[in-house]
């Protein structure tokens, strides 16, 4: 994958603790969101393929802090239009919300296929709250609990009984962890909450795409 041009700006808020971007052919790091950018942030850049008739791109999301670059995660966009190298246009978007959850997406502008992955904030190996005590992590966990409550309220009680029960249980555990003031436990609950929020996002999205399936395959 290689970059072709820059595009897009985001709204204002708190700031990103590290820069986010993707790895390109040859191991380079292309920034999509800059360190210190206001949150929530959404930016996107256009990339293209590096070999002829390539039908899939492996998107490796990276986070950079100063000179150090760490892996956030990777995901595959498959089903891109077969063409000469450099012809397909692939838009990579990175979205960081106010809670620090990272959503990365890739879309082939020609075929319209989209793939997205939600990564927990804690996938950035050194958390930005390190050294700032438990209070910063705790306030994040409170925000995540509120969000998990709101989002689970809109989900089908019967179809997703298992997931909803797990969320309720986790919320109770998170309160217990907050009360214990044990930073490790709180951080663990934070990652678990973020992971379940990612799963709820995927569940809601697939419910939507199932309903639209008729016209998508047309």
């Amino acid at each position, binding site marked *: 994958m290689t970059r072709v041009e820059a595009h897009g700006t985001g709204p204002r808020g708190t700031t990103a603790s590290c820069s986010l971007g993707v790895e390109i052919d040859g191991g380079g790091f292309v920034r999509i969101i800059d360190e210190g950018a206001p949150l929530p942030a959404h930016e996107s850049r256009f990339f293209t393929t590096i070999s002829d008739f390539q039908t*899939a791109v492996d*998107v490796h999301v990276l986070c950079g802090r100063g000179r150090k670059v760490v892996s956030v995660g990777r995901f*595959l966009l498959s*089903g891109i239009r077969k063409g000469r190298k450099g012809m397909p246009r692939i838009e990579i978007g990175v979205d960081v919300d106010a809670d620090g959850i990272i959503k990365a997406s890739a879309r082939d502008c020609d075929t319209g296929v989209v793939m997205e992955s939600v990564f927990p904030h804690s996938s950035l190996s050194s958390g930005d709250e390190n050294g700032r005590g438990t209070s910063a992590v705790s306030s994040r966990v409170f925000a995540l609990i509120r969000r998990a409550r709101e989002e689970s309220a809109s989900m089908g009680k019967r179809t997703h009984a298992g997931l909803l029960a*797990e969320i309720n249980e986790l919320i109770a555990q998170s309160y217990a962890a907050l009360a214990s003031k044990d930073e490790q436990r709180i951080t663990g609950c934070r990652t678990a909450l973020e*992971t379940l929020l990612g*799963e709820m996002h995927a569940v809601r999205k*697939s419910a939507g*795409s199932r309903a639209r*399936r008729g016209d998508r395959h047309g």
Partner: protein
Amino acid sequence: MVKAESYRVLGLSPGATFEELKHAYRMLAKEYHPDSRSGKGNALAFLRVEQAYRSLVLEVKTHSHDAADAHTGRYRAAGGPRQGHREAPEADIFNLGRTLLMSRDPAARASAARRLGASGKKSSYAFLRKAFSDREERVLISAVRAVGYLQIRQSAGELGSLFLKSGTPVKREILSAIHRIGIDFGFQGIVSLGLEDPDHGVRSQAARLCRG
């Protein structure tokens, strides 16, 4: 047959869940069945698989009982068998996750992945997704299988990435996981890669998934 030997015959390690046992037994029995079309038909091997399964089935069925409860959505915190458990309830998942990501012993990592899969907790995916970069194939296979059991829908992109860089056994495990989760939840891309795979087994498994 000694228990350890039985596990070995089935390619499992102690601590395997009932689901895993059934799966391993079915795959091997099919492969070695004297009438099998795989060309590996071998009555003696078939018999050994049969014996191994029989010697383990009772024990495994009982000890993975808790896990089966979790699958159906019942939770320990709501008054399960471990009510008197002292540790924080989420600690099980965290400890397994730590073993999965930190242990130097591949067998311990693979076993942690299996137990996360049997936990019924989708939040295990926080650890399982990180195990996708493990160097040991058996750890990858266990992690992918766990993702399938837990029916993690957000795994499509990451499983795709793993599919692209993996060998045949992991690819086939990914397709099995997709079968459990449901192809419609964003997994069509992986299946279409599977249809063009150089390996015949991967291609036919992908084709079966397409037919539904």
